[in-house]
């Protein structure tokens, strides 16, 4: 299912959890290629030989020796994981990280991009201010034509043997692509697929509380949509269950994922029917990525599913 995986790394300990998942996946799916990809810095100007280090901001001179040194560092960092992976290739490029990651993914027709959620080692307390706005992860998730697997925490369940996939939907067009990915993944590995929708009763947008009758109506409507949009497209696949909860969507998704011992949460990149080029990372998926104990796959388009 994941013949060509691109693991985009800052080559620092912040990506260790993502590295583990990327190598595990490549091993599990016997991937044809695992690219371990690092962009060391931004060009300072034009065809300059200098780059500004993406992490420290220091100016560095790009030379074959410098590139070789980066490769050595990457080999040291991922040496242990690379031992069992013959199809792994280390690649470095200079440029704007998100652009280069997308370019690399496009050129090599990768099926999955694996990334860490942060570029810095974060305190949990600090994450509320930093979130992912403007980050490479956000830009890659927005533009990628293949699913982007975002790892923000150590994977405590064994992802390479994952057995519970939660697909959280808002019934948008983008969610349709996410569903396709979730179904294929569940079918491929024999995982149970949980189709989940949270009826948003926060009432914040409407400026008023929603009463019980309205909630029940919306739950029924959601159940009907589940059948029409997803169950009808499942064919023979019967290892699934449907749940509709009410509450604040990201809280309910996290609660449900925990309840079901989810190994993977699949969501659309954004939550409204807008052009993917214009879409911001939805606040719901952002909140889920931030707190989820298991990997979150953000799916934007059906192109590479």
């Amino acid at each position, binding site marked *: 299912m994941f013949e060509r995986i691109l693991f985009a790394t800052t080559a620092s300990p912040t990506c260790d959890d993502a590295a583990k998942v990327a190598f595990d996946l490549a091993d599990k799916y016997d991937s044809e290629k695992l690219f371990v990809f690092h962009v060391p810095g931004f060009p300072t100007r034009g065809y300059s030989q200098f780059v500004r280090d*993406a*992490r*420290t*901001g220091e100016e560095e001179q790009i030379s074959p020796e410098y590139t070789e040194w980066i490769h050595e560092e990457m080999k040291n960092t991922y040496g242990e994981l690379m031992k069992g992976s013959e199809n792994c290739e280390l690649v470095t490029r200079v440029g704007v990280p998100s652009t280069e990651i997308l370019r690399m993914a496009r050129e090599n027709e990768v099926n999955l991009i694996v990334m860490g959620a942060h*570029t810095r080692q974060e*305190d*949990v*307390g*600090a994450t*509320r*201010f*930093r979130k992912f706005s*403007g980050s490479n992860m956000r830009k890659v998730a927005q533009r990628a034509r293949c699913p982007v697997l975002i790892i923000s*925490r*150590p994977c*405590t*369940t*064994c992802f390479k*043997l994952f*057995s*519970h996939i939660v697909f959280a939907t808002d019934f948008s067009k983008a969610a349709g692509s996410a569903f396709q990915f979730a179904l294929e993944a569940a079918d491929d590995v*024999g*995982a*149970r697929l949980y189709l989940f929708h949270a009826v948003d009763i926060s009432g914040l947008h409407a400026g008023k509380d929603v009463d019980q009758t309205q909630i029940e109506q919306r739950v029924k409507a959601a159940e009907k949509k589940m059948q029409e949009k997803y169950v009808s497209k499942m064919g023979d696949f019967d290892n699934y269950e449907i749940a509709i909860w009410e*509450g*604040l969507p990201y*809280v309910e998704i*996290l*609660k449900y*994922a*925990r309840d079901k*011992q*989810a*190994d993977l949460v699949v969501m659309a990149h954004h939550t409204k029917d807008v052009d993917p080029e214009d879409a911001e990372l939805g606040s719901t998926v952002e909140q889920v990525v931030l*707190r*989820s*104990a*298991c990997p979150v796959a953000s799916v934007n388009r059906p192109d590479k599913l």
Partner: protein
Amino acid sequence: MNLITLAKDGGIIHGGKAIEGDPLVHLAYQVELDEGYLLRSYFKMLEQYPVFQGLNPFFVSYLERVHASPDHGCEYPGLECLELGKTVEMIGYPGKPRMEIYTTLRGVNGGDVTDIDSIQLESLLDTPVRLGKLKHVVLGDKMDIFEFQTVFTLFEFIDGIAWQLGFHGTPVECQLRR
């Protein structure tokens, strides 16, 4: 003057007696913790003053988990206490230079500080809670951190712990179907 004490039984003490009526006015007050204050005391406070439950969307589900837990003995081996700290961090790169102020709740074991994200809430309830210092991190230098005495308001206390607990959703175990 504007000092309140958070009691082990969940009460909020001001001027020697438990506050009655709307507690919101005390959110900006400085807190001190009663002897033997536990994480469980925090949830008892939320029950005694339900208006605080609206401060975080996870409170309702966490109170359910607290109710489903044993009344005592909910401790994590080797974890001496939980410490709420405050950090002022000057950041130079990436992005524009900025300063961020945030709280952190961490586990303490002897002299060691440890992250608690992977520990279930049910294993933390009877762990003592204490107030820590303010750390000043300059431009990413986490080796030479300045530490200062500081104070916490009731809002910082409630919100700081709630934010951290919002990350405690780790599945208990891996249930493989195959």
